[in-house]
């Protein structure tokens, strides 16, 4: 019974580290070095599994989170919805150590270099919100593309609304 349990944990251990060694070898070593060592290995395996699960959960959560945030014309103000969406991103970012790149965009109306500045103002608004809420400054990079990379090239209110955005990457 106990041997079987150790064997199972060892298999998990092997998977968690993706070392790919044969389960028979792990089983042999566990039996040969005694219960204490097996216990340590089991605990470590469990801890690693938990970490892997958390990372997977974070990745899954991040994948489901909104990563494009929209703005009103000539504005860089974060709406209540945007702030709520960013709070969810912040919760995930706090459990990770990844860097984020914030790409600011503008719609086609007005001049290109002014829109470049407007895109930066939007990216900075998001960056400042992340930093104020505990994300380290060095992890946040901003860049503005102005009106150079529209998602929708039409000249309609709906297209312009799609293009006034910050993308978190």
């Amino acid at each position, binding site marked *: 019974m106990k041997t079987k349990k150790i064997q199972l944990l060892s298999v998990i251990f092997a998977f968690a580290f993706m070392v790919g060694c044969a389960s028979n070898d792990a089983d042999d070593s566990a039996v040969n070095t005694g219960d204490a060592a097996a216990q340590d290995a089991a605990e470590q395996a469990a801890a690693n599994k938990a970490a892997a699960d958390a990372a997977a959960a974070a990745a899954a959560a991040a994948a489901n989170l909104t990563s494009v945030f929209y703005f009103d014309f000539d504005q860089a103000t974060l709406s209540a919805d945007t702030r709520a969406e960013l709070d969810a991103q912040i919760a995930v970012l706090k459990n990770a150590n990844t860097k984020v790149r914030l790409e600011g965009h503008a719609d*086609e109306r007005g*001049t290109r*270099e002014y829109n470049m500045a407007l895109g930066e103002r939007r990216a900075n608004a998001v960056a400042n919100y992340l930093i104020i809420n505990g994300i380290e400054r060095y992890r946040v990079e901003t860049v503005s593309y102005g009106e*150079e*990379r529209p998602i929708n090239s039409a*000249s309609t209110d709906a297209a312009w609304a799609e293009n006034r955005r910050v993308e978190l990457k």
Partner: protein
Amino acid sequence: MRVFLFIVVALVLSSPVNAELTIEITQGVDNPTSIAIVPFGWQGSGIPKEDVSGIVQADLFRTGQFAPVDRDDMLSSPQQQSEVYYRDWRALGVDYLLVGRLIPSENHMVAQFELFDVYAEKRILTGSQSGAISDLRGVAHGVSDRVYEKITGIRGAFSTRILYVSAVKQAAGQFKFRLLQADVDGAGEEVILEQSQPILTPSWAPDGETIAYVSFETTRPAIFMHNLRTGVRQQLTNFKGLNGAPAWSPDGRQLAMVLSKDGSPDIYVMDIATRQLKRVTRHFAIDTEPSWMPDGKSIIYTSDRGGRPQIYQVTLATGYEERLTFEGSYNARARVVPDGSGIIIVHKGTGDYHIALLNIDKGSIEVLTETALDESPSISPNGAMLLYATKYQGKGILAAVSLDGGVKFRLPSRFGDVREPAWSPFLR
């Protein structure tokens, strides 16, 4: 009352197969000057590679100030004064007559030409224009420059080039960007740079061979300096944040630009020789789109420090700043006309974004265009016309308007969107 003269004929200027730009004149002046440009004589073997007099005719037609006579209506084909019978031309109501002939020598071509005032029955100009045999278009533009100046008193700008940017969509938010140069009539197009990252704000140095522009090739904006003759290319800036809106000083020694490295977008001036930067504006609002006044002593720029984008002027020696525009909710990207009397701006009053002329002394704004989403005006070196970018039938195109608003034409692109025209200085 102005009678709009819509010339619906699309004038495809015998451009090379892959040229992106064609020209459609949409509005000319009320009473254009009638001119007959007789096909030039040819003294070489075979046939010339370009129709030189046809190019001269297209040049003059494109100004909107001239109505060239149809070749089929001509009663004779003189090539020099001794063959000119004024009655043939008076019968057609022609004001001016241009005749000439092309004489090839070893490696170059000479165009000898004579211009006549038909009513005075007088020859008013004789000249010769030479160039490489491979550059017959250049020879033709040179003739156009001389004829235009003789009749209008304004230096011709037909021998100039334009820079512009094209973008071809690859996927949502993904484009192929190209920086191009072409003759001002769209011919002789060459690709300067092609990449998947944005290219913006091409700007000519006064030498007519050095340019500056913004490229995102490093995944961030950076200002580059590029010599079109030698191909030598240098990255001038690599600061955190914006690196944009390069504008050459009138003496070509300094480059004004926008950097946001110190927090918000401000105007800076870089000394090209030493690469030293001097900060010009200092405000938490957006300051961008610098442009030099002709005397090089002050810079005009866009700022939204008053809440909305408006044009300001800063005197470099003192740092004194002054707001220049008060009419309209959006005034941006100013460019001074060559004589300094006015400023061309992107202006939004109650309607769409248009190109407008601000009279500096009177403070009045005159709207010059009626197209939609107009931007990026660039004035010809003789101050007669300006090129700008607009949207037409869902595509970004270049268009032109005379500074008095009387003449308009479009340069639609056959591929993708074109934008950000920059008209070169005089090149010879």
